[in-house]
């Protein structure tokens, strides 16, 4: 079966800095892929290539068989209507209210009446647990609420694909769990294909059908959560442990305080 999202030999560099190098990923219909990786390893760049916001240096991204960077602008917009993108910081239109944000794509791309749009906006806000916030300005929302309004905006056009860019970064653990549950609910109720970028291992294992790890621009693992846990690759194991010591960091981390104290004491005794 042809994958819904097919990332083939994708490479992208900004000047001398290689961000993605020969990345290959396939996401099947209805599948939920979670992409893990350290900060600055090119996870967001991957999503931006899928959305056609960036052009690959080499390789390509195909969505439903259409190679994104080869599409004409009108064709690209057609494809984008099938994809809902949830930005890291929500990227809500700050000159608009919550309902105007959520209904934006409906107003522009459908022939729905105002009443129908209002109904769909309510439905979307209900799915993310934000009923009765329609009239609020975006400046009146908390970080978690903004993300959820961003989700509601992304699902308004009933997309087949959802992309989440670090949906839980900067949120407290409870809100992180709420967001994780909403993503699971969306997956169950809408049956969408999704790619989620996150640092939060707990929600990653809850959400994922498969987990990929990007390390220094390369995809070093892409497998089921159980296989990922057992993967002997030292980088995977270090990432799962959340330990600073190991091959993950390019520069050596600062010593732990206890170790540093012991080393200092030894130095004085000498």
């Amino acid at each position, binding site marked *: 079966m042809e994958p819904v999202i097919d990332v083939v030999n994708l490479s992208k560099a900004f000047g001398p800095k290689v961000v993605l190098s020969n990345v290959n990923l396939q996401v099947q219909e209805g599948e939920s892929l979670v992409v893990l990786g350290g900060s600055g390893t090119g996870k967001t760049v991957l999503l931006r290539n899928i959305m056609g916001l960036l052009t690959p240096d080499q390789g390509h991204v195909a969505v439903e068989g259409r190679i994104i960077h080869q599409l004409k602008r009108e064709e690209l917009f057609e494809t984008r209507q099938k994809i809902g*993108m949830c930005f*890291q910081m929500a990227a809500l239109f700050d000159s608009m209210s919550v309902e105007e944000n959520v209904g934006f*794509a409906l107003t522009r791309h459908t022939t729905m009446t105002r009443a129908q749009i209002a109904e769909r906006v309510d439905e979307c806000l209900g799915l993310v647990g934000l009923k009765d916030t329609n009239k609020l300005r975006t400046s009146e929302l908390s970080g978690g609420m903004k993300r959820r309004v961003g989700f509601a905006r992304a699902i308004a056009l009933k997309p087949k694909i959802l992309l989440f860019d670090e949906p839980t970064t900067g949120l407290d653990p409870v809100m992180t769990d709420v967001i994780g549950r909403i993503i699971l609910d969306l997956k169950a109720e809408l049956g969408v294909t999704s790619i989620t970028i996150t640092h939060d291992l707990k929600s990653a294992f809850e959400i994922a059908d498969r987990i990929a790890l990007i390390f220094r621009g390369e995809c070093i693992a892409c497998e089921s959560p159980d296989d990922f846990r057992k993967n002997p690759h030292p980088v995977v194991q270090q990432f799962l442990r959340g330990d600073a010591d190991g091959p993950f960091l390019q520069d050596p981390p600062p010593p732990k305080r206890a170790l540093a104290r012991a080393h200092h004491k030894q130095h004085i005794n000498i």
Partner: protein
Amino acid sequence: MLTKTLENIGAKVMGALAQAGDFAVLSGRTFRAIFKKPFDGASLLHQFNAIGVNSIPVIVLTSLAVSAVFAVQLAFGFRQFQAEGMASGVEGLAIVRELAPVIVGLMMAGRVGSAMAAELGTMQVTEQIDALECLATDPIHYLFVPRLIAGAIMVPLLTALGIYVGFWGGRMILVGVEGQSAFVYSEGFYQLLSARDFRIAMIKGLTFGIIIALVGCWRGYRAQGGAEGVGNAPTSSVVTSSLWILVMDFFITKLLLV
């Protein structure tokens, strides 16, 4: 040393050409997008209000001040030759041909062009423009087009307002202070003018409106680098559009005033 200098000059020239090319491409895309659907009437009305209606007080005040001070200068100058009667005619000529279009253009570049650059710059660095793209909406069509149309319509109208207020600013000084006859002033103001002068003033207003909107949107759209980038966008928008307003003023005058 010489190679290095030549390299630097070459890099600067290439950079300037790249910028000019980028501006030309975005401008072309904006004009092409004017007739694309959907037509966003609410956004256009909002821009008419932001660019036109909200600028009325500042245009009235600046036009009044400039025309009044120019009338003071003219009254003083012509008094040296006992030719005070000429003052109203020259006042009219200067206001319609140059002062109103250029002062309105420069004021609008400062008030409206900078606001456009700041707004779009903020949208760019907070990923709102990427969000527009992801919602299958062309930012050029959604953001540039209403501002361009509103600029192209409202700046000529504000120029007409500037001329009207300029008439009264001159009258205030020449009739109210210098004691000239109100009838002579009104007759004299239009004496040296023809319909062509008003037409040129409107063409200047239209051109300046287009420059202000396109440069403001372009600078904002290309803002990058967080707060510093957003801060630089309005400044460079005002400087660039003011320069182009003055340059185009020369060419329009030279080409059409024959």
